């Protein structure tokens, strides 16, 4: 390879390394931000769970419309991915989990509806001919947005249009590990709820122990106004919002961590490439010089004799 070509390759590597390094730094900052946001959401989850733990003991809990299990003839899947790629196997993992779950349920495509959050999810399901009822980008997660998604899910469930609502998202285990997770959000069951709460109280984070303690606290006797049923009716949709909000946060934190790691390995790789290219460059240059020197000395020898 000619010297000039190698030189331009090294330059190109340098440029892409600058880009991947910048993306890594940006993702790291965004990751910290989204983890902070997750911490903020805990006060709400904590309060809702503590209210629920006062009222959930009763038989009433499993007899409400939102908690009654029905035989499944149609299902709604909320699938959360990122808008952009370059985040390793993050999105494909979630999408694969969702598709596998749909296939395992034995439901046909025409009875499965999808709420796709994130461009990757909506592209994926639209291309495969699923019925995408709502899609949104992830760049601004607001309480209005959560409300819309939750209201849609609850409405469909209560009207009987779907008998099951599930949510698929990448759960952040650590910066290096994100696990695609599937949860049933409707009908609400106590078991599933406890799983989600234990997700919200992960091994990481500062507020962990406080939350665990408060849910274990001795139950005081509460007076309930106006009635247990009405309180449950008010609090159950809120629990669904917590599910969804929590999934969105996890997904965001996962996205940024995954991208940070992906970009880090890209930067490392670019560095390695630069090194090996520089080595090659020097070898070729050395060879050219040696050749020139031997040509000159050869010429001199010829003239002298």
């Amino acid at each position, binding site marked *: 390879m000619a010297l000039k070509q190698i030189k331009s390759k090294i330059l190109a590597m340098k440029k892409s390394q600058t880009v991947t390094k910048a993306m890594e730094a940006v993702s790291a900052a965004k990751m910290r931000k989204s983890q902070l946001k997750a911490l903020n959401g805990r006060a709400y989850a904590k309060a809702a769970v*503590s209210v629920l733990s006062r009222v959930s003991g009763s038989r009433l809990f499993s007899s409400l419309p939102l908690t009654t299990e029905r035989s499944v003839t149609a299902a709604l899947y909320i699938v959360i991915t990122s808008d952009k790629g370059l985040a390793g196997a993050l999105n494909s993992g979630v999408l694969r989990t969702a598709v596998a779950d749909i296939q395992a349920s034995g439901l046909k495509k025409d009875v499965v509806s999808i709420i796709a959050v994130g461009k990757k999810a909506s592209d994926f399901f639209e291309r495969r001919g699923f019925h995408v009822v709502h899609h949104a980008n992830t760049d601004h997660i607001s309480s209005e947005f959560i409300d819309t998604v939750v209201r849609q899910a609850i409405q469909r469930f209560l009207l009987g249009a779907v008998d099951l609502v599930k949510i698929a998202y990448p759960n952040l285990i650590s910066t290096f590990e994100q696990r695609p997770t599937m949860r049933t959000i409707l009908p609400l069951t106590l078991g599933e709820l406890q799983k989600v709460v234990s997700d919200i109280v992960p091994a990481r984070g500062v507020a962990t122990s406080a939350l665990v303690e408060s849910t274990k606290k001795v139950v005081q006797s509460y007076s309930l106004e106006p009635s247990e049923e009405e309180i449950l009716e008010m*609090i159950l949709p809120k629990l669904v919002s917590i599910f969804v909000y929590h999934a969105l946060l996890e997904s965001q934190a996962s996205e940024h961590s995954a991208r940070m790691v992906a970009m880090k390995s890209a930067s490392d790789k670019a560095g390695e490439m630069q090194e090996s290219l520089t080595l090659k460059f020097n070898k070729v240059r050395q060879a050219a010089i040696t050749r020139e020197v031997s040509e000159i000395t050869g010429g001199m020898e010829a003239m002298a004799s």
Partner: protein
Amino acid sequence: MHLVIAKVDEVLFEGEAHSLTVPGTAGEMTVLGEHMPLITTLKAGELRVHLTVHDEPKIFPVEKGVLEVRRDGATVIL
């Protein structure tokens, strides 16, 4: 009493307060410290929080929500 007012995605208020007035479904009510434990639903209106006895109240609009009162404080989730 320790008061927390939280929405799903943000904490609107957290700290010590003197009293909290809420539009309960069963009528407006004011909660002071050492109130008996209570859970009640809220209807549309506004929350008024007094940090001290005579100050201007902080006002938070509410559409619906749940109030939980414990011996050591109160939590409103909107």
